[in-house]
């Protein structure tokens, strides 16, 4: 497995774990109009900090294990993989962001509900981006 495929796995798994950390925290407000809640805000900040720390530590470890791979610039196949994955993720981001606006307008979400929907859209598109990279790396391009 190449260095870049390993980093894609690390990012995808870290995203899933830290997203679950936030989504499953009690008290869970599964509503479109959640009340402002400082505990949830702190859990969100903790999730983001956890993501950054795990990502940095894991990538530094992988870099140390394969320094030559890590220093090599992207070649044409890897650039194509990045572009194809980003293109797919863009569709997810555009669709889910539009969905967030529709939810706000038609289902009466408040500002915090909209912010959560946009955050979920962003994280979902990142997940699709890195999952697509892994699939393309496995398939060849």
């Amino acid at each position, binding site marked *: 497995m190449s260095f870049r*495929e390993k980093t894609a796995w690390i990012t995808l798994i870290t995203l899933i774990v830290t997203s679950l950390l936030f989504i499953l925290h009690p008290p869970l407000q599964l509503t479109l109009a959640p009340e402002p809640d400082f505990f949830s805000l702190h859990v969100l900040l903790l999730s983001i900090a956890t993501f950054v720390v795990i990502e940095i530590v894991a990538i530094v470890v992988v870099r140390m294990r394969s320094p030559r791979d890590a220093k*090599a610039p992207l070649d*044409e*196949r*890897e650039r194509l993989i990045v572009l194809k994955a980003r293109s797919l993720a863009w569709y997810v981001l555009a669709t889910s962001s539009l969905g967030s606006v529709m939810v706000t307008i038609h289902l009466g979400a408040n500002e915090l509900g909209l912010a959560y929907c946009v955050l979920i859209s962003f994280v979902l598109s990142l997940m699709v981006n890195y999952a697509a990279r892994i699939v393309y790396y496995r398939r*060849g*391009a």
Partner: protein
Amino acid sequence: MTGTAITNTIRKLRFERNEMTQQDLAERVGVTRQTINAIELGKYSPSLEVAFRIAAVFGVRLEEVFSHDGGIPEPRGAAR
């Protein structure tokens, strides 16, 4: 891109050059080992530039490395 109509003789050419490794070839061509592996297995069709560089490393002509298996489709609206 899973499987292309382009076939290649990279494996054979590597074997004939004292079993050159994919890593050696990748370094000389300027791509990653995984890309050479994907090209060799027919999972990825390289750009013309990389194809020419691979041929140059082996010191052979491009068509001795790569060949196209499928027929060439007729352009739309071509007169019969």
